[in-house]
Structure formats: C-alpha cells, structure tokens
C-alpha cells in the first residue's frame, strides 16, 4: 500500500480558509506521517482554483509530476471541471486525479483523515484505457435572432466554421449584417441531432430537401416555435436599437398588443408612454407562473423605486409591486425594500391565481391580496413582468429532435442548480437567450456570448481524451428494451447495431449509474462501482 501511495502527489489549496497557514499544512503533513504515509510531492498553494494558482501548479507539476494527484482544499477543489482541466494540463490521465474537501476549522487530524481517505480512493482506483475523441471545429447555431447572430459572430471571430439555421425565410438584417464565412440555412429547421459531442450529425429540413451537417457543438438560441420575438434592424449589435413585431423602431416589445414588457425594458417603455393622463399606474408583476429567484425581486425593488421617484414633475406615478412573497433575505435587499417603500411603492402580496385582462389601453390585474384578505383589481397603464413570466414554451419538435430536456415552463433547460445558464442536459449542446426563456435583450446577448465561449472552451482542445470508465453493457444480457436509452439524462446511451445491444458513449457518459440502476436485465455495470463491490460492502 505504502509504495503505491508514494506515487501520489498532493496539492493543498488554502483559498477557502480550510488551511489557514503553512504551519497548519505542516501539521496536516505531520499527522499524515504519523499515520505512516509519506507523499512524494507536496504543493502548497493559496489559490489552486484560480487561474494564477493553476498556472503555478501546472508549471510545478508538469515535468517531474507524480503519476497521480490528489487535491485537497475547499469544496471547489472537488469540482469535476477543475480536476479535468488540471489533469489535461499536467498530462495526467483523466482518472488520475481526485479531490477531497477540507472543512475550515476541522483541525489537522480531520484534514489528515480526509486526505488519507482520498489517497486510498486514488490508489484503489483502477486505471482505464482512454480514447481520443476528435472534436469537429464546426458549430451549428439554431435561430438567427439577436442572440443567435451574436453567438455566430463570436464563433466566427474565434475561428470556427459556423452554420446558422433559422425557420424564417429571411434574416431581418439581410445577408449584409452577417459575419463573413457563415453558412446560412433559411426556412429550415433542426429535425434531429444524432451522434455525440465532437461529431454531432444534425439533420436539417431545408426547402431543398434534407441535409445532414456534422458539427462539434450546437447552440440553440431560438425560442417558441423557432421564431424570435425580436426582429433585427441593421446595425443592431452596434447601436442596440430594435423593432418590435410590427416593425416599429422601439427598444421594447409588447405582448399580444398589451403593454406588458420585460422588467429590463420597463423604464424605457414608461418613458415612451403618452403623457396625457394625470397619474400613470405602473405594475411590477413577479411570481406569475412560478416562484421566482431573489434576483428578480432585487431588480423589481430597484426598478420600482426608480420609477416612483424619477417621474416628470407634472405626471404622478404610482408603482404597484405584485408578488407572492416579499423576499428580503439579506441586508442589502432589506435596504432596497425600505427605500422602495419610502419612495411610495405599494406592495401587494398575492395568493392564488393572478388574472390579466385588457382594459382600455392598459392591463387590469386582478388578484387576491393575502395580507388584506380581499380581492383587488388594479388598472395599470403598463406592466413589467420578469422574462420568466413572459416566455412561451419551446418548440416541442426541437426539444424532441435534439434530446434536450425541458423544464416545467417548456424551456430548453432543466430546472437544476447544476446547470449553468448556457448548459443543457446534453453535453455539447448549449442554450442561450430565448432558447431558455430569456427575452430581455441585454441579458440574452450576454448569454449568447457566454454560450459561444462555452463552445470555444470545449472545441479549442481539438481532441478530448476520455477515460473508458463509462457504463459497460453486457451484450449477452442486453434485451434491447431501451430502458437505459430512455432514462439516461445525458443522452449518452444508444444502440450498437453490430452487437445488437445498448452502448454508452464515453464522451457523454457522466458515470452516474442511473442506467445501471434502471436496467431490468442487469446488463449494465459501472466499472468504478460494480455490483459485486457494492454487495461486498453490505455483507
């Protein structure tokens, strides 16, 4: 055991406050020595999880580095992305790194115990063969609205061949506004997406028949029905001006002809309203379809206060904020709330259904106030709604064809805390802007850029070295019931026609074992957690 452990290098990170000083790290190493373990190389860094700390570690480890590496630090040192990145940069095989979490204040002995557990896990981990996955340097962008064009532009600038697909017959900007070297399919839709990241085969239904485009990654930016709610005018990305659905040049969009706009565009919309009336009533509506995050509340509070205070002298404004719950969980939020209240914003805490109907040129909001226990009906000249409330469900054909799961609102991103804004359940498929229900333009453009960068982060490696530790299917036992294909959250299972059995793709498989748990024929096994090993543990 001792000899094998010695091949392992140890990298200690102090950024999370887990290890406060070199002295404490010394104590940890002494405790390790006391347990009879000597590690070959120790790297002590204040910030392994930052770019600078990573540079330092890579330069330290690259040439004479150990065969295996254990990270110990705060919880971020266990992030799979960080470990994979580190492994790639230091030329270690992907499975030769392991991360353990050190809790701040746990003390040297507990730290040492955690490190020891990590060393044991690392030593016990078998070595797997690896496979080199070629990453095609071509990207498919679905939707040619502002978000799609922004992504395509960024991707072209990064040097990727970019294919743009849009259901519309013509891009609003015409071909002049498009970045050079872009391949455009108008009046087309993405019907199916086969293959895995690095070598997707996208089936496009075009006016001149079906086409197959191979691409390394996909960015989906189109929202409901593949038609963006924003149309593009020339030079949009420079000037930021837009037309609404009817071609009127305005910074805002209206929903179904009603003055309902996203929160982000409300201030501009209110500024443009005719000033005939004595009092202008502005409603801010949160939690329309689901419980919204605190950030929406923060935005609404700030906006409400601003609208209430910054009105022109002659026109009085009254701002109502409708929400299910006033979320003031932090001190700054509490301050914002107080300020909004002092400015004169009226808070309405609603319960049950919220009704919206057209009345005159405005919108009537009817709801039940849970504090007053009374039915209310407020006539608003305009209504700001968070983008979540405005979004329509995504095109079901697109969702089914690409295998991207939708959330409760039908957006192309599952409701999960681990999915960063650009991520979908399917590795290699990214989503931005209207694709995930984000119709507020500045945010949608930012997301489009983030998605382009995410594609770059993936494809810039040119090749992906993956460990063949993915789920293994016993072809003799497999009955091809497709339970695994259906249940895999990452679409990493498919059918191998030669073997007449299911097969998992190592580049997409995340080794969670859901398929193994699901398989009625018990034909699937995770090499890292075999059934025999699990049973031995409970004996």
């Amino acid at each position, binding site marked *: 055991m001792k000899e094998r452990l010695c091949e392992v290098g140890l990298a200690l990170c102090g950024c999370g406050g887990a290890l406060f000083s070199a002295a404490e790290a010394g104590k940890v190493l002494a405790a390790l020595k006391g347990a009879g373990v000597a590690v070959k190389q120790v790297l002590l860094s204040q910030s392994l999880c930052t770019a600078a700390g990573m540079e330092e570690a890579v330069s330290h480890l690259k040439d004479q580095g150990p065969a295996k590496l254990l990270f110990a630090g705060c919880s971020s040192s266990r992030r799979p992305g960080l470990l994979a990145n580190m492994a790639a940069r230091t030329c270690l095989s992907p499975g030769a790194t392991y991360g353990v979490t050190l809790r701040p204040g746990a003390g040297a002995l507990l730290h040492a115990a955690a490190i020891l557990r990590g060393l044991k896990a690392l030593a016990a981990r078998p070595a797997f063969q690896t496979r080199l996955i070629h990453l095609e340097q071509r990207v498919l962008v679905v939707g040619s609205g502002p978000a799609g064009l922004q992504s395509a532009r960024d991707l072209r600038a990064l040097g990727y061949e970019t294919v743009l697909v849009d259901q519309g017959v013509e891009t609003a900007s015409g071909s002049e506004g498009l970045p050079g070297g872009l391949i455009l399919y108008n009046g087309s839709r993405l019907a199916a997406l086969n293959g895995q990241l690095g070598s997707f085969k996208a089936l496009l239904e075009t006016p001149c028949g079906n086409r197959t485009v191979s691409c390394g990654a996909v960015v989906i930016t189109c929202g409901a029905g593949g038609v963006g709610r924003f149309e593009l005018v020339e030079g949009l990305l420079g000037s930021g001006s837009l037309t609404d659905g009817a071609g009127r040049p305005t910074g805002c969009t209206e929903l179904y002809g009603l003055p309902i706009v996203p929160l982000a565009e409300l201030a501009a919309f209110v500024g443009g309203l005719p000033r005939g009336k004595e009092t202008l009533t502005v409603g801010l509506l949160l939690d329309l379809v689901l419980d919204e995050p605190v950030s929406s509340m923060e935005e609404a509070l700030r906006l409400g206060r601003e609208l209430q205070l910054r009105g022109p002298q002659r026109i009085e404004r009254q701002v109502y904020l409708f929400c299910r719950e006033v979320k003031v969980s932090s001190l700054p939020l509490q301050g914002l709330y107080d300020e909004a209240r002092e400015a004169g914003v009226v808070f309405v805490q609603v319960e049950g259904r919220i009704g919206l109907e057209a009345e005159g040129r405005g919108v009537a909001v009817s709801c039940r106030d849970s504090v007053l226990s009374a039915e209310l009906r407020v006539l608003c000249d305009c209504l700001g709604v968070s983008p979540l409330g405005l979004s329509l469900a995504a095109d079901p054909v697109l969702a089914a064809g690409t295998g991207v799961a939708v959330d409760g609102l039908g957006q192309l991103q599952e409701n999960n*805390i681990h999915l960063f804004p650009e991520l979908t359940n399917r590795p290699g498929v990214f989503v931005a802007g209207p694709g995930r229900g984000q119709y507020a333009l500045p945010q949608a453009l930012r997301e489009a850029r983030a998605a382009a960068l995410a594609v770059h982060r993936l494809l810039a490696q040119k090749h992906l070295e993956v460990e063949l530790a993915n789920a293994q299917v016993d072809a003799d036992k497999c009955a091809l019931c497709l339970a695994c294909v259906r249940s895999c959250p990452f679409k990493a299972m498919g059918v191998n026609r030669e073997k007449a059995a299911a097969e998992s793709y190592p580049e997409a498989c995340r080794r969670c074992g859901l398929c193994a748990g699901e398989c009625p024929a*018990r034909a699937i096994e995770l090499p890292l957690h075999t059934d025999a090993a699990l049973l031995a543990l409970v004996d």
Partner: protein
Amino acid sequence: MEKKKIVAFCCENSSLKAAEALSDPSLLEAVEIVALPCLGKIEIGLVLKCLEKGHPGVLVLGCPLDNCQYLRGNYRAVKRVERVRQLLGEAGLDESRVRMDFLSSLDSHRLAEILQGIKRSEA
C-alpha cells in the same frame, strides 16, 4: 455474531460529504455507509438484498430534488424506494425499515439528528 447495522446508501456528492464533515464522527458507527456515485445507481434488488442479509434497515440519503448533479438521479431513486416500500408492504414487512432523506453537503446537522435517532432507537 456481530449485530448488523443499518445500511446507509449515500450519494457521493451530497450526503457523503455531509458525513465526512460530521463534528462527531463516532455517530457514523451507528450505520454502515455505502457510497454511490449518484442515488440513481441504487437498485431495488440491492436494497432488498441488504434486508435479506439481515440488516435491520436501509437509509437512502440523496441530494435535495432538482439538485442532483446528474439531473434526475434522485427522482429515479424516489420511485425505486417507493417500489421497495410497496414490495415490503405486500410481503407483510415493516415499510419503515427503508427510509429516504434528502441532504445537501452542508446538512451535517440533519445527518447527525438522523444518526442520533437511530442510536436512540437501538439503545
């Protein structure tokens, strides 16, 4: 023969971290911890086998819903645990021998409560 302990299937990403961070590690002696990459790996047969081998109970500890790193693992686990309990009920056994709970990696205090409860009921 040594008395068998309750088996605790822990998701590596949440409850196992919570277990590692327990302020009183001796509490862990009340159960036998089996780490799983994700609760989606748990099988009905595996849980039943534990009971068959004479373990007094099975504790299934996963991430809070919508918080699974593998997106849907804990939803699948909920269904499987429900099925196990249904099977136990049909066989006339005590359904409460299989228990499920959702812990995040920061919920060490809740894990401690659960383990103390087990210790108390055994004593």
